[in-house]
Protein backbone atom coordinates (compact mmCIF):
# COMPACT_ATOMS: atom_id res chain seq x y z
CA UNK A 1 0.00 0.00 0.00
CA UNK A 2 2.84 2.36 0.88
CA UNK A 3 4.39 1.67 -2.52
CA UNK A 4 1.13 2.27 -4.43
CA UNK A 5 0.38 5.53 -2.59
CA UNK A 6 3.91 6.82 -3.16
CA UNK A 7 3.93 6.01 -6.84
CA UNK A 8 0.47 7.55 -7.28
CA UNK A 9 1.74 10.75 -5.67
CA UNK A 10 4.83 10.90 -7.90
CA UNK A 11 2.70 10.13 -10.98
CA UNK A 12 0.17 12.90 -10.34
CA UNK A 13 2.91 15.41 -9.47
CA UNK A 14 4.69 14.54 -12.74
CA UNK A 15 1.49 15.03 -14.75
CA UNK A 16 0.97 18.44 -13.15
CA UNK A 17 4.56 19.53 -13.75
CA UNK A 18 4.42 18.52 -17.41
CA UNK A 19 1.15 20.44 -17.74
CA UNK A 20 2.43 23.48 -15.80
CA UNK A 21 2.98 25.68 -18.85
CA UNK A 22 -0.49 25.28 -20.39
CA UNK A 23 -2.23 25.32 -16.99
CA UNK A 24 -0.51 28.52 -15.89
CA UNK A 25 -0.36 30.39 -19.21
CA UNK A 26 -3.30 29.14 -21.30
CA UNK A 27 -2.95 30.77 -24.73
CA UNK A 28 -1.02 33.82 -23.51
CA UNK A 29 2.25 34.04 -25.45
CA UNK A 30 5.57 34.42 -23.67
CA UNK A 31 7.27 37.83 -23.78
CA UNK A 32 10.01 38.01 -26.47
CA UNK A 33 12.80 38.17 -23.86
CA UNK A 34 11.60 34.92 -22.32
CA UNK A 35 11.34 33.39 -25.79
CA UNK A 36 15.06 33.99 -26.27
CA UNK A 37 15.83 32.15 -23.03
CA UNK A 38 13.48 29.34 -24.01
CA UNK A 39 15.33 28.89 -27.29
CA UNK A 40 18.50 28.14 -25.36
CA UNK A 41 16.81 25.79 -22.92
CA UNK A 42 17.31 22.59 -24.93
CA UNK A 43 21.12 22.76 -25.27
CA UNK A 44 21.49 23.94 -21.67
CA UNK A 45 19.39 21.13 -20.26
CA UNK A 46 21.25 18.57 -22.36
CA UNK A 47 24.65 19.74 -21.17
CA UNK A 48 23.48 19.61 -17.55
CA UNK A 49 22.05 16.12 -18.13
CA UNK A 50 25.37 14.85 -19.50
CA UNK A 51 27.20 16.14 -16.42
CA UNK A 52 24.67 14.71 -13.96
CA UNK A 53 24.54 11.35 -15.78
CA UNK A 54 28.30 11.00 -15.83
CA UNK A 55 28.94 12.43 -12.36
CA UNK A 56 26.11 10.84 -10.40
CA UNK A 57 25.14 12.04 -6.89
CA UNK A 58 28.06 13.94 -5.37
CA UNK A 59 30.25 12.94 -8.35
CA UNK A 60 30.35 9.44 -6.82
CA UNK A 61 29.43 7.79 -10.11
CA UNK A 62 32.47 9.03 -12.03
CA UNK A 63 34.10 6.22 -14.00
CA UNK A 64 36.80 7.09 -16.54
CA UNK A 65 35.82 4.15 -18.76
CA UNK A 66 32.30 5.56 -19.07
CA UNK A 67 33.75 9.00 -19.72
CA UNK A 68 35.96 7.69 -22.54
CA UNK A 69 32.98 5.88 -24.09
CA UNK A 70 30.84 9.04 -24.02
CA UNK A 71 33.69 11.04 -25.55
CA UNK A 72 34.19 8.38 -28.23
CA UNK A 73 30.53 8.70 -29.19
CA UNK A 74 31.05 12.45 -29.48
CA UNK A 75 34.04 12.00 -31.76
CA UNK A 76 32.23 9.55 -34.05
CA UNK A 77 29.32 11.98 -34.37
CA UNK A 78 31.67 14.91 -34.91
CA UNK A 79 33.38 13.01 -37.72
CA UNK A 80 30.00 12.68 -39.40
CA UNK A 81 28.79 9.31 -38.10
CA UNK A 82 25.04 8.75 -37.72
CA UNK A 83 23.62 9.19 -34.23
CA UNK A 84 22.75 5.55 -33.35
CA UNK A 85 26.12 4.33 -34.66
CA UNK A 86 27.94 6.88 -32.52
CA UNK A 87 26.08 5.77 -29.38
CA UNK A 88 26.77 2.09 -30.05
CA UNK A 89 30.44 2.87 -30.71
CA UNK A 90 30.63 4.64 -27.36
CA UNK A 91 29.10 1.69 -25.50
CA UNK A 92 31.46 -0.74 -27.27
CA UNK A 93 34.52 1.33 -26.30
CA UNK A 94 33.49 1.31 -22.63
CA UNK A 95 32.66 -2.40 -22.75
CA UNK A 96 36.11 -3.14 -24.21
CA UNK A 97 37.84 -1.00 -21.57
CA UNK A 98 35.98 -2.92 -18.86
CA UNK A 99 37.18 -6.26 -20.23
CA UNK A 100 40.70 -5.60 -19.05
Amino acid at each position, binding site marked *: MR*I*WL*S*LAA*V*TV*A*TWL*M*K*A*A*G*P*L*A*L*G*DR*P*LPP*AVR*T*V*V*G*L*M*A*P*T*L*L*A*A*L*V*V*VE*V*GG*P*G*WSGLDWR*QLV*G*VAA*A*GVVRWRGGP*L*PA*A*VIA*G*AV*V*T*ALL*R*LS
Partner: protein
Amino acid sequence: MTVRASFASGVRDGTGPAAATFVLALSYGAAAAQAGWGFWAPVTFSMLAFTGAAQFALLTTLASGSAVAAVSSSVLINARYIVMSVALNDSLRGSRLRRALQAQALADPSFVLAHRGGGRFDAPRLVGATAPQWLCWVTGTAVGLLAQPSPGLLEALGADVVFPAFFLLLAMDEVRRSPGALLAAACGAVIAGALLLVTEPGYALLAGTAGALVGAAHGGSAHADDSEGDR
Protein backbone atom coordinates in the same frame (compact mmCIF):
# COMPACT_ATOMS: atom_id res chain seq x y z
CA MET B 1 5.09 19.85 -42.85
CA THR B 2 1.76 18.14 -42.20
CA VAL B 3 0.84 16.85 -38.76
CA ARG B 4 1.15 13.29 -39.98
CA ALA B 5 4.59 13.85 -41.50
CA SER B 6 5.79 15.62 -38.35
CA PHE B 7 4.54 12.79 -36.18
CA ALA B 8 6.21 10.21 -38.43
CA SER B 9 9.52 12.09 -38.36
CA GLY B 10 9.28 12.14 -34.57
CA VAL B 11 8.68 8.39 -34.41
CA ARG B 12 11.65 7.79 -36.69
CA ASP B 13 14.06 9.96 -34.70
CA GLY B 14 12.62 8.75 -31.40
CA THR B 15 13.64 5.13 -32.03
CA GLY B 16 17.29 5.80 -31.10
CA PRO B 17 16.50 7.23 -27.67
CA ALA B 18 13.82 4.52 -27.38
CA ALA B 19 16.46 1.79 -27.69
CA ALA B 20 18.45 3.50 -24.93
CA THR B 21 15.27 3.78 -22.88
CA PHE B 22 14.71 0.04 -23.23
CA VAL B 23 18.13 -0.72 -21.74
CA LEU B 24 17.50 1.68 -18.87
CA ALA B 25 14.06 0.15 -18.30
CA LEU B 26 15.62 -3.32 -18.07
CA SER B 27 17.74 -2.18 -15.15
CA TYR B 28 14.77 -0.39 -13.60
CA GLY B 29 12.67 -3.55 -13.78
CA ALA B 30 15.49 -5.64 -12.33
CA ALA B 31 16.03 -3.17 -9.47
CA ALA B 32 12.30 -3.03 -8.72
CA ALA B 33 12.12 -6.82 -8.59
CA GLN B 34 15.02 -6.91 -6.17
CA ALA B 35 13.38 -4.26 -3.99
CA GLY B 36 10.31 -6.50 -3.72
CA TRP B 37 7.88 -4.24 -5.57
CA GLY B 38 6.08 -7.13 -7.26
CA PHE B 39 5.19 -6.99 -10.97
CA TRP B 40 2.22 -4.70 -11.39
CA ALA B 41 3.32 -1.71 -9.32
CA PRO B 42 6.47 -1.00 -11.37
CA VAL B 43 4.72 -1.70 -14.70
CA THR B 44 1.79 0.57 -13.82
CA PHE B 45 4.23 3.21 -12.62
CA SER B 46 6.13 3.06 -15.92
CA MET B 47 2.92 3.27 -17.95
CA LEU B 48 1.43 6.22 -16.10
CA ALA B 49 4.38 8.27 -14.89
CA PHE B 50 6.86 7.51 -17.72
CA THR B 51 9.73 9.25 -16.01
CA GLY B 52 12.98 7.33 -15.68
CA ALA B 53 14.97 9.33 -13.15
CA ALA B 54 12.13 9.91 -10.70
CA GLN B 55 11.10 6.25 -10.80
CA PHE B 56 14.65 5.16 -10.00
CA ALA B 57 14.81 7.75 -7.23
CA LEU B 58 11.60 6.57 -5.61
CA LEU B 59 12.86 3.01 -5.68
CA THR B 60 16.00 3.83 -3.72
CA THR B 61 14.62 6.51 -1.38
CA LEU B 62 11.50 4.58 -0.39
CA ALA B 63 13.65 1.68 0.77
CA SER B 64 15.61 3.83 3.18
CA GLY B 65 13.44 6.65 4.47
CA SER B 66 9.99 8.10 5.07
CA ALA B 67 7.46 7.98 2.23
CA VAL B 68 6.95 11.76 2.27
CA ALA B 69 10.67 12.44 1.93
CA ALA B 70 10.96 9.81 -0.79
CA VAL B 71 8.06 11.25 -2.80
CA SER B 72 9.25 14.84 -2.53
CA SER B 73 12.82 14.10 -3.55
CA SER B 74 11.57 12.05 -6.52
CA VAL B 75 9.24 14.85 -7.58
CA LEU B 76 12.07 17.33 -7.31
CA ILE B 77 14.11 15.44 -9.87
CA ASN B 78 11.35 16.26 -12.36
CA ALA B 79 11.06 19.95 -11.55
CA ARG B 80 12.75 20.74 -14.86
CA TYR B 81 9.51 19.63 -16.57
CA ILE B 82 7.94 22.87 -15.31
CA VAL B 83 10.57 24.87 -17.19
CA MET B 84 10.21 22.69 -20.28
CA SER B 85 6.40 22.93 -20.15
CA VAL B 86 6.50 26.74 -20.03
CA ALA B 87 8.96 26.71 -22.94
CA LEU B 88 6.67 24.44 -24.94
CA ASN B 89 3.38 26.25 -24.34
CA ASP B 90 3.68 28.84 -27.14
CA SER B 91 3.99 26.05 -29.68
CA LEU B 92 0.87 24.17 -28.57
CA ARG B 93 -2.60 24.81 -29.97
CA GLY B 94 -6.11 24.41 -28.63
CA SER B 95 -7.74 24.71 -25.24
CA ARG B 96 -5.86 24.66 -21.96
CA LEU B 97 -6.79 21.02 -21.35
CA ARG B 98 -5.78 20.03 -24.86
CA ARG B 99 -2.42 21.72 -24.41
CA ALA B 100 -1.94 20.12 -21.01
CA LEU B 101 -2.57 16.69 -22.56
CA GLN B 102 -0.10 17.30 -25.39
CA ALA B 103 2.49 18.42 -22.84
CA GLN B 104 2.31 14.95 -21.25
CA ALA B 105 4.51 13.82 -24.14
CA LEU B 106 7.42 15.76 -22.60
CA ALA B 107 10.59 13.73 -22.19
CA ASP B 108 14.16 15.01 -22.35
CA PRO B 109 15.07 13.56 -25.79
CA SER B 110 11.66 14.47 -27.30
CA PHE B 111 11.87 18.04 -26.03
CA VAL B 112 15.14 18.44 -27.90
CA LEU B 113 14.11 16.53 -31.03
CA ALA B 114 10.98 18.69 -31.32
CA HIS B 115 12.96 21.94 -31.03
CA ARG B 116 12.79 23.79 -34.35
CA GLY B 117 15.13 26.56 -33.26
CA GLY B 118 14.40 29.95 -31.76
CA GLY B 119 12.24 28.48 -29.00
CA ARG B 120 9.65 27.04 -31.39
CA PHE B 121 8.62 23.42 -30.98
CA ASP B 122 6.85 20.97 -33.26
CA ALA B 123 4.09 19.40 -31.15
CA PRO B 124 3.23 16.42 -33.42
CA ARG B 125 6.94 15.63 -33.66
CA LEU B 126 7.16 15.75 -29.86
CA VAL B 127 4.34 13.25 -29.48
CA GLY B 128 5.78 11.06 -32.25
CA ALA B 129 9.22 10.99 -30.63
CA THR B 130 7.77 10.04 -27.26
CA ALA B 131 5.60 7.20 -28.59
CA PRO B 132 8.41 4.64 -29.17
CA GLN B 133 10.18 5.73 -25.97
CA TRP B 134 7.04 5.15 -23.91
CA LEU B 135 6.54 1.75 -25.51
CA CYS B 136 10.15 0.75 -24.81
CA TRP B 137 10.05 2.09 -21.26
CA VAL B 138 6.97 0.01 -20.41
CA THR B 139 8.01 -3.20 -22.19
CA GLY B 140 11.58 -2.82 -20.90
CA THR B 141 10.29 -2.52 -17.34
CA ALA B 142 8.23 -5.71 -17.76
CA VAL B 143 11.11 -7.64 -19.35
CA GLY B 144 13.50 -6.43 -16.65
CA LEU B 145 11.11 -7.60 -13.94
CA LEU B 146 10.80 -11.04 -15.50
CA ALA B 147 14.37 -11.62 -16.69
CA GLN B 148 16.17 -9.67 -13.93
CA PRO B 149 19.47 -9.06 -15.74
CA SER B 150 22.27 -8.44 -13.26
CA PRO B 151 23.49 -4.82 -13.00
CA GLY B 152 27.01 -6.14 -13.52
CA LEU B 153 26.12 -7.55 -16.93
CA LEU B 154 24.53 -4.30 -18.16
CA GLU B 155 27.53 -2.37 -16.92
CA ALA B 156 29.96 -4.74 -18.62
CA LEU B 157 28.13 -4.09 -21.88
CA GLY B 158 28.61 -0.34 -21.49
CA ALA B 159 24.88 0.31 -21.07
CA ASP B 160 25.57 3.27 -18.79
CA VAL B 161 27.20 5.09 -21.71
CA VAL B 162 24.03 5.10 -23.78
CA PHE B 163 22.11 7.94 -22.16
CA PRO B 164 24.90 10.43 -21.51
CA ALA B 165 26.17 9.75 -25.04
CA PHE B 166 22.74 10.49 -26.51
CA PHE B 167 22.45 13.69 -24.54
CA LEU B 168 25.94 14.75 -25.60
CA LEU B 169 25.21 14.12 -29.29
CA LEU B 170 21.89 15.97 -29.16
CA ALA B 171 23.67 18.84 -27.38
CA MET B 172 26.29 18.93 -30.15
CA ASP B 173 23.52 19.21 -32.75
CA GLU B 174 21.89 22.05 -30.81
CA VAL B 175 25.16 23.91 -30.27
CA ARG B 176 25.96 23.71 -33.97
CA ARG B 177 22.77 25.63 -34.72
CA SER B 178 23.54 28.77 -32.75
CA PRO B 179 26.59 30.40 -31.15
CA GLY B 180 24.60 31.47 -28.07
CA ALA B 181 23.77 27.84 -27.43
CA LEU B 182 27.42 26.97 -26.80
CA LEU B 183 27.75 29.53 -24.02
CA ALA B 184 24.39 28.53 -22.52
CA ALA B 185 25.30 24.83 -22.63
CA ALA B 186 28.72 25.45 -21.08
CA CYS B 187 27.13 27.44 -18.25
CA GLY B 188 24.51 24.75 -17.73
CA ALA B 189 27.21 22.10 -17.48
CA VAL B 190 29.33 24.12 -15.05
CA ILE B 191 26.40 25.03 -12.81
CA ALA B 192 25.11 21.44 -12.72
CA GLY B 193 28.61 20.09 -12.13
CA ALA B 194 29.30 22.46 -9.25
CA LEU B 195 25.94 21.89 -7.58
CA LEU B 196 26.34 18.14 -7.90
CA LEU B 197 29.05 18.45 -5.25
CA VAL B 198 26.75 19.97 -2.66
CA THR B 199 23.21 18.90 -3.47
CA GLU B 200 21.00 16.26 -5.08
CA PRO B 201 21.04 15.68 -8.85
CA GLY B 202 17.48 17.06 -9.15
CA TYR B 203 18.49 20.47 -7.83
CA ALA B 204 21.67 20.43 -9.93
CA LEU B 205 19.64 19.80 -13.12
CA LEU B 206 17.04 22.42 -12.32
CA ALA B 207 19.66 25.06 -11.50
CA GLY B 208 21.63 24.08 -14.60
CA THR B 209 18.78 25.32 -16.81
CA ALA B 210 19.68 28.83 -15.57
CA GLY B 211 22.61 28.58 -18.00
CA ALA B 212 20.08 29.60 -20.68
CA LEU B 213 19.74 32.97 -18.92
CA VAL B 214 23.48 33.58 -19.25
CA GLY B 215 23.42 32.62 -22.92
CA ALA B 216 20.48 34.96 -23.57
CA ALA B 217 22.02 37.83 -21.58
CA HIS B 218 25.06 37.72 -23.85
CA GLY B 219 22.92 38.28 -26.90
CA GLY B 220 23.17 34.74 -28.08
CA SER B 221 19.58 34.35 -29.11
CA ALA B 222 18.96 30.99 -30.69
CA HIS B 223 18.81 31.75 -34.36
CA ALA B 224 15.49 32.26 -36.05
CA ASP B 225 15.23 29.55 -38.67
CA ASP B 226 11.68 28.76 -37.56
CA SER B 227 10.63 27.91 -41.07
CA GLU B 228 13.39 25.42 -41.75
CA GLY B 229 12.11 21.92 -42.37
CA ASP B 230 13.94 18.75 -41.38
CA ARG B 231 17.07 18.71 -39.36
